């Protein structure tokens, strides 16, 4: 019983890469999804009382379209504040979308009433980042995992308890601890409780919002392996949100990169890491340290100047133009569409095209007013 915190038999191998075949039906189709938060300002009253003279809107998610296919793990990466968590929450309607569609089996979840949405919550679940904040400290494990069984009338009494024990075993927790409270467990064990709770309703799709970021590195691997095993056994589809680029590479079939509320690149995980197209992705990937010291010594880093601009009234055109070494005047004016530069490899950059996919071959930018030129340095 001493091994209850350690998953047996996890090899760390993910299922073979699954590419969306042409014509495959997506499980979730997100179309032009926007989540804006109005901070006020801009009205006559605000001018009178000294508020903001312009209307301030946080465009956390600003027109995101993406398909998520059954059985795949879609990794979503980006810096803090780029809107990746908001996107995950908006899919589950934990944050109300401002506009756009979230299609699940043909039904637009964004338009459903809260009452109708409840029925879909059985299919769509979430795993949270902080295993200390995501469990009610006043409920026992049995109450926490049993709550969804109760709410949806899936199992009661003796049968319910049997289900709870079974779920605990599935995630590698000893059912002996069924009457314990969350504070009696370690971080990794608590995350397993959170996973068991999500599994209780037998969902098809799980948004995993930074599920390993709060854990020790040794525990991270266990949780990733557990999630991979559950995916194989239960045919789950994951949206795996993380800022940990190496974890994303390990678990994902495809990777989507987000910058300031917009998707900037989507491709097969291996491709995004080995051959990124969009300048921001290149900079992001070049920041990942390599485990091999010899390779690490020769790693080329693209160091971006300046900080991520505020998502309140973000830059016009391509949002990366304030930091991009290749930006030209048009980058300030034109919002770059996600374009299929190579088969199944989408990037949002007007300076590259299927004919000239390599940004390094393109002349450096000459955009007037470019405040933060990036530079390439060898480390």
């Amino acid at each position, binding site marked *: 019983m001493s091994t209850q915190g350690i998953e047996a038999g996890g090899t760390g191998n993910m299922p073979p890469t699954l590419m969306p075949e042409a014509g495959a039906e997506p499980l979730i189709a997100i179309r032009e999804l926007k989540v804006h938060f109005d901070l006020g300002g801009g009205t006559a009253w605000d001018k009178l009382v000294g508020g903001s003279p312009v209307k301030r809107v946080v465009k956390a998610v600003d027109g995101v379209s993406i398909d998520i296919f059954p059985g795949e793990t879609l990794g979503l990466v980006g810096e803090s504040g780029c809107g990746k968590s908001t996107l995950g929450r908006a899919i589950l309607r934990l944050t109300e979308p401002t506009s756009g569609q979230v299609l699940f089996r043909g039904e637009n979840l964004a338009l459903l009433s809260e009452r109708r949405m409840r029925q879909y919550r059985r299919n769509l679940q979430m795993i949270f980042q902080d295993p200390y904040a995501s469990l009610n400290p006043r409920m026992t494990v049995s109450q926490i995992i049993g*709550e969804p069984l109760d709410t949806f009338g899936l199992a009661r009494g003796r049968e319910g308890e049997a289900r709870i024990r079974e779920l605990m075993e599935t995630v590698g927790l000893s059912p002996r601890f069924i009457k314990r409270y969350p504070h009696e467990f370690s971080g990794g064990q608590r995350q397993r409780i959170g996973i068991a709770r999500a599994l*209780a309703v037998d969902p098809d799709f799980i948004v995993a919002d930074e599920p390993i970021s709060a854990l020790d590195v040794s525990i991270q691997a266990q949780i990733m392996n557990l999630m991979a095993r559950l995916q194989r056994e239960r045919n789950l589809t994951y949206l795996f949100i993380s800022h940990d680029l190496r974890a994303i590479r390990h678990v994902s079939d495809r990777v989507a990169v987000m910058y300031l509320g917009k998707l900037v690149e989507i491709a097969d995980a291996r491709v995004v890491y080995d051959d990124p197209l969009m300048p921001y992705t290149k900079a992001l990937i070049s920041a990942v340290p390599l485990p091999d010291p010899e390779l690490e010594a020769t790693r080329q880093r693209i160091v971006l100047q300046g900080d991520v601009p505020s998502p309140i009234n973000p830059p016009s055109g391509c949002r990366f133009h304030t930091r991009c070494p290749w930006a030209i005047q048009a980058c300030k004016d034109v919002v770059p569409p996600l374009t299929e530069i190579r088969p199944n490899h989408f990037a949002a950059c007007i300076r590259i095209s299927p004919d000239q996919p390599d940004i390094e071959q393109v002349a450096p930018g000459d955009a007037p007013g470019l405040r933060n030129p990036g530079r390439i340095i060898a480390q």
Partner: protein
Amino acid sequence: MNRLSIFGLVFIALLVLVALFAPLIATHDVGATNLAARYLSPSAEHWLGTDATGRDIFSRVVFGARISLRVGLVVVFVSGIIGTVIGALAGYYGGWIDRIVSGYVFNVFLAFPGLLLAIAMVAFLGAGLNKLILALCIIGWVGYARLIRGQVLKVREYDFVQAARALGARDWRIIFVHILPNAIQPLIVQASLGMAGAVLAEASLSFLGLGVPPPAPSWGVMLEEARDLTTLRVAPHALIVPGLAIALTVLAFNFLGDGLREYLDPRQRRR
């Protein structure tokens, strides 16, 4: 807990026992007047002396504890429940409910000095113990509602509340099972301070003749009856004893409240 809060706790415990066993503890009939035994000083027969009509002050103070605690408990309990429900609804649903409740209702109630509002309310409802309690509840719930609204606003954003929503829990379940048990801790402190406030308010209103009608042994009534020059000169204990009872009770609840606040919030704990 510091020494003052321990004192508060012990004093309140004693007070509760006194109130519960008042008929056994009292030495005389609280209403029995005896014109031959007016203004007596403390003695073996009358432990705390007698008042202007020869009633035993000790027995009256003992029974007075019943009135004070009854007012305090009922007011805190009823206004606490009303305040919690209204505060939780305003905090959880936000929107127009919250704009009306916290934007207008709270401010209107808080704009009036509490005691003045109570006097106006009693003048409208008429005097009497139950009407006094009703008036104090109508004023008292706002403090609890404001406190709970703030707590709910905070707790509702916690991940486990979001998780409950993601798991399809209904609103009432989220509010009563997930939010409130994690939000009501400060209410315990507020309730202790509220007891002090209610005891004081009852004494004040009774003193002004707007609370419990005179023959009843309320501490406020006793003060009012002893409010003349003869008593002050001949038998000052008739004033001092009920005054001290009020002061000590209010202090005890305040000390207990402070101690609880410190105990429940480790950041304020000294050392």
